[in-house]
């Protein structure tokens, strides 16, 4: 048994050293402690409180989507923002935020850029976009928002609360 633990210990030490070194060198590395991605941090101070937020650019050069809480989402809804629902058509048809457009992430992500732009040609690049999905930490809202930002949309927001929270609040939906 002692032999087993000794071997386990050696393998673990090698793995920990290699793992942390690789993380430091990897372009996809994560902070050791904290959220796996700053994509998840909800920005509750910006648009909801009327404070104009500076647009940040990512390393890749596109404008970073912003996470917004429910009150900001409602405000954008009233101002006529375009709501993008990233779920599958079957789920979308069972109910969605009123007026939302269905852009299923699973298919959308693999389209070539020109096809993405063609599909979205009716939505101007400077229009406020709110990306959402089912809620309950469903994450295609984030992934879809980044797809939009990458092809040049300038004001992309992520509503992580999703349909779940929207319905709980009793806000308008299409069923």
């Amino acid at each position, binding site marked *: 048994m002692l032999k087993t633990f000794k071997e386990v210990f050696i393998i673990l030490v090698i793995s920990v050293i290699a793992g942390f070194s690789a993380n430091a060198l990897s372009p996809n590395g*994560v902070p050791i402690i904290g959220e796996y991605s700053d994509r998840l941090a909800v920005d509750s101070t910006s648009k909801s409180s009327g404070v104009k937020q500076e647009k940040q650019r990512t390393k890749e050069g596109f404008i970073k989507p912003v996470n917004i809480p429910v009150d900001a989402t409602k405000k954008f809804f009233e101002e006529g923002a375009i709501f993008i629902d990233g779920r599958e058509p079957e789920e979308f048809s069972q109910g969605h935020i009123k007026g939302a457009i269905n852009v299923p992430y699973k298919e959308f992500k693999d389209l070539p850029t020109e096809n993405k732009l063609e599909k979205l040609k009716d939505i101007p690049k400077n229009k406020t976009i709110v990306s959402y999905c089912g809620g309950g930490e469903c994450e295609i809202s984030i992934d879809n928002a980044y797809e939009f930002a990458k092809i040049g949309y300038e004001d992309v927001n992520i509503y992580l609360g999703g349909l779940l929270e929207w319905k709980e609040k009793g806000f308008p939906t299409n069923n």
Partner: protein
Amino acid sequence: MMGLLSNKYFQILLRLIIGGLFVYASLNKLFNQEAFAKAIYNYKLLPSEVVNILAIVLPYIEFFSAVFLILGIYKKGSSFLIGGMLIVFIIALTRAYVLGLDISCGCFSLETVSEKGDISQRIIEDILMLIACVLIFFNADKKNFTNNNKEIQQ
């Protein structure tokens, strides 16, 4: 039957299969910490403070255990570690299956598991691999015994 299970060549075959599968499974995670962290996060099994550390280290534990297993170095330690990881995977997958976590959402970034059928298949695969690990673990020292026996017989 026991003879076959502890047969030297059968043991090598088991080690190559399990080691090969684990090297393969670890490869696209070695430099994809963010995507793997997201996949772990989606299991909603661990506090978010632990998710990143696991995403940084776990692929390397998989990789090195598998490499050692293939090379036949530290067979006990590597099969113990792989078996331990498989037990954790089986528990996490079963829990995700029972709770129906996120499977309609396309939320698994590495997209290895997306349908409920895939999850059940993965659980069965993991159980089979766990059985193989147990066989490797308990036969890791057997080679010496067989040699000793041969020597005694001679």
